[in-house]
């Protein structure tokens, strides 16, 4: 097992090198750079050259790549062109705001999906199952910003239950518990919307996984032994329906830190998603490349974790 993990960690090195080369190559091929993207109406050709020299954009691409990698190895992702501060600082400023809603969303959606999925599998084709299925499709048919608008309209504007946007009340000078309460209130809408969006797909996977397992022989055996239905479902069947779930769980790791671009915008949530998006649109390469690599590492780790968890869920899978 530990040998397997070590080998996989070692494999991450060439994979990351590959990713860094491809990502950097893309940044070179994307039309425009920070100087053209910032659209300064008074930019002269001389000033543009000065700026490119300051940012090192005038060097040959291969040289730029090695400078970037060398700095990255020492933990220096460079300075963001837009924010005029180190990339690590920019990421650190915004990423936790994204993490907190993503984390709560994950807990909620996985819990709900597990229960709903299991029940609609157990009572396949029941009224409950059909309603859930239809609801899932309904939510899939509308883009995320639409669900966001729906929530703002009904929950925030009409019912006035929760604030429309932002993370805190303007001018709130509270600390401690009052501050936490304020943030939680502001979190409510984005979390509800994000949960609604993720829970649909997850429910389908859980339901299918359970449906498969329920039909298998050992479940019949368990039932025949006279075990309680609840025990059968949760102890025997659920465990084996977990494999797809574990795969999906691996994808959650980068998702936790990646931010939700549209919804952050809809709800004015100060997350990293919007910042990352702006870095792409403004061709702010240090920030764009730095955050991409950060997410790449998390992606690889997430997949490694799910591969390890397969063996835990189903000991028949031997990791080699």
């Amino acid at each position: 097992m530990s040998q397997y993990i070590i080998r996989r960690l070692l494999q991450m090195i060439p994979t990351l090198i590959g990713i860094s080369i491809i990502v950097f190559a893309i940044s070179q091929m994307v039309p425009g750079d920070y100087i053209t993207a910032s659209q300064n109406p008074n930019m002269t050709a001389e000033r543009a050259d000065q700026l490119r020299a300051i940012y090192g954009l005038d060097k040959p691409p291969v040289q730029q790549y090695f400078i970037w990698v060398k700095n990255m190895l020492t933990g220096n992702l460079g300075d963001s062109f837009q924010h005029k501060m180190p990339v690590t600082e920019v990421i650190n400023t915004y990423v936790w705001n994204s993490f907190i809603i993503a984390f709560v969303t994950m807990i909620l959606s996985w819990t709900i999906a597990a229960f709903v999925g299991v029940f609609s599998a157990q009572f396949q084709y029941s009224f409950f199952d059909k309603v859930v299925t239809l609801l899932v499709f309904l939510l899939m048919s509308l883009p995320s910003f639409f669900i966001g608008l729906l929530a703002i309209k009904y929950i925030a504007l009409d019912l006035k239950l929760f604030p429309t946007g932002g993370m805190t009340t303007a001018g709130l000078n509270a600390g401690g518990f009052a501050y936490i309460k304020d943030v939680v209130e502001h979190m409510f809408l984005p979390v509800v919307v994000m949960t609604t969006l993720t829970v649909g797909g997850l429910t389908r996977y859980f339901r299918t996984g359970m449906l498969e397992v329920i039909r298998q022989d050992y479940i019949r055996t368990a039932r025949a032994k006279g075990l309680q239905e609840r025990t059968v479902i949760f102890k025997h069947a659920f465990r084996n329906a977990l494999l797809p779930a574990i795969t999906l769980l691996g994808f959650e790791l980068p998702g936790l830190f990646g931010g939700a671009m549209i919804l952050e915008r809809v709800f004015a949530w100060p997350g990293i998603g919007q910042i990352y998006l702006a870095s792409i649109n403004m061709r702010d390469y240090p920030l764009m490349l730095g955050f991409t690599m950060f997410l790449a590492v998390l992606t690889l780790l997430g997949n490694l974790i799910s591969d390890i968890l397969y063996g835990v869920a189903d000991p028949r899978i031997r990791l080699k």
Partner: protein
Amino acid sequence: MKKRLSLMLVTLMAFGSILAACGGGEEAAPADNGTDSAVTTPAESGEDAAGETPAEGADSESAIGLTEATDMTMNPPGAVNRTDSMIIGTVAPQGVFNPLFHQTAYDFAIDDNLFSSLIKVKADGTYENDMADKIDISDDNKTYTFHIRDDAKFSDGTPVTANDYLFTMKLYMDASYDGQSDPLSWNVVGANEYNKGTAKDISGIKVVDDKTVEITVSDYDAMTQVNLGAVAPLPEAYYGKGYKQGDLTSVKQLNAKPVGSGPYKLKSYSAGQEVDLVANEHYYGGVAKIPNVIFKVTTDTTNMAMLQSGETDLDNVTVNEDNVEELKSMGFLDVNVLKNNGYGYVAMNNKNPLFSDVKVRQALTYGLNRAEVVEAAYGPYAEVINIPQSDVSWAYTADKINTYDYNPDEAKKLLDEAGWTVGSDGIREKDGKKFEINFSATADNPVVDALIPIMTENYQELGIKLVTETLDFNAIMEKKDRGDYDMFFAAWGLTPDPDTTVYITDGAQNNSGYSNPKVDELYAKGKKELDLDKRKEIYAEAYQQINADAPEILMYQRTNMLAINGRLDGWDISPYKEYQHSLSQVQAAQ
């Protein structure tokens, strides 16, 4: 999880395009053209700043301008009770609170209140003294002496001195300076030497005494005074601690902890959420009447709702008939629809043989129903334009300007004259070549939505095949830089001064490859002339030339909308003087 991935993609895309639209297609310039980049006009202007356009459609007259609140009893209690503070809705600032380095209009709006300069913009787009109480200009226009007010102080109570001005200029001229300004183009004597590190001081800047600084330039033009006067002095004692020539890192590290001489000072900043300002008790212009200002981050989905609930007092809202109606119906808001400093246009590649003939370019302008496009996209909140200048500018002219009203017959006639004859398939051809135009535009933009179908249909009628595509804005700009394009849609921002490189031969901003020696000469003359009346004549002539040459199809000038809670009075807002410039004058009505 596939869903998840796709969604991520969707979000990326949709938002990407929104940004692209704002950054490029819609207004190809940052809105902050107040000081750094701007250009001056030394004397008064004859035009009324909020002036209406004389020529255009009648409905826009009533649509543009200020509509006062009608019923202040509807004002939500939250806003009414907030007597010692105001909350301003804004797009998220980046937290670069330093006038040397800020990149976005939103940081700029905040910095305008944290830092003040030697001069400031007036409602008509000209400038007046601010921190300088006197400016002397030598007879050869090459030496500028600024006298700083005796009572000018930074927010920490220390006086603003000529040394601080010199220090700030050093930062601008530093080799590692990467802000929005182009300080070397100010032609300050000795600036290049300082930039290259061959001199420790800038020889052209002389500190005469504590409050007097004298700047010599090697060459002057109409904007020299503004370039030099718009500098906001930073306290050397604070920003100079770690500064070494050639390395501005230590200065940038203070971006989040600004000290300036503006009417407000920074109290707190939480990234992506809000910026809290509090009145600077040392401000030379008088302590601000409302002591607390909060810039609160809003979005276009929530900004109207927050105005309605009283959570914000002021916000920019996208102009369209729905939004205007909604805001006016609230009753307690002053709705101010202002001309935008910019214009949209369809560029034609003048170097491409297709468009090298002026008759073809004129035909394409006549043959496009611009009024219908503008009406469809903006209703009464935008106007068709015929010269590349805002009609609120002093440089605007409607004299001897062809309006190119939609006239397909005229267009066909011109195309016939240019030798493009209708072929058997209904498409015009010349020398065996079909008239086919590739047109690129950014998507998700109200104009493009309307422009593409109308343009396709209009040009089909002329016998021209239009092949349209939607692209990322930077991708279009790169095609433009390579000269590998036929036509694209974009927009320009306008500075208060009419000087620009858009229409001069090989100018840095010349997107269309247009070249007319007469226009080059006029722009060179206008830049060098300091007398406003003479400049007016020069630019009028230039615009008449451009209008006749039709190097591009000028489309529209649109508007911006500010909604302000009626409880706040004392604003002085114009297309050139943004709301942030009068924050410290504003008071809450009783």
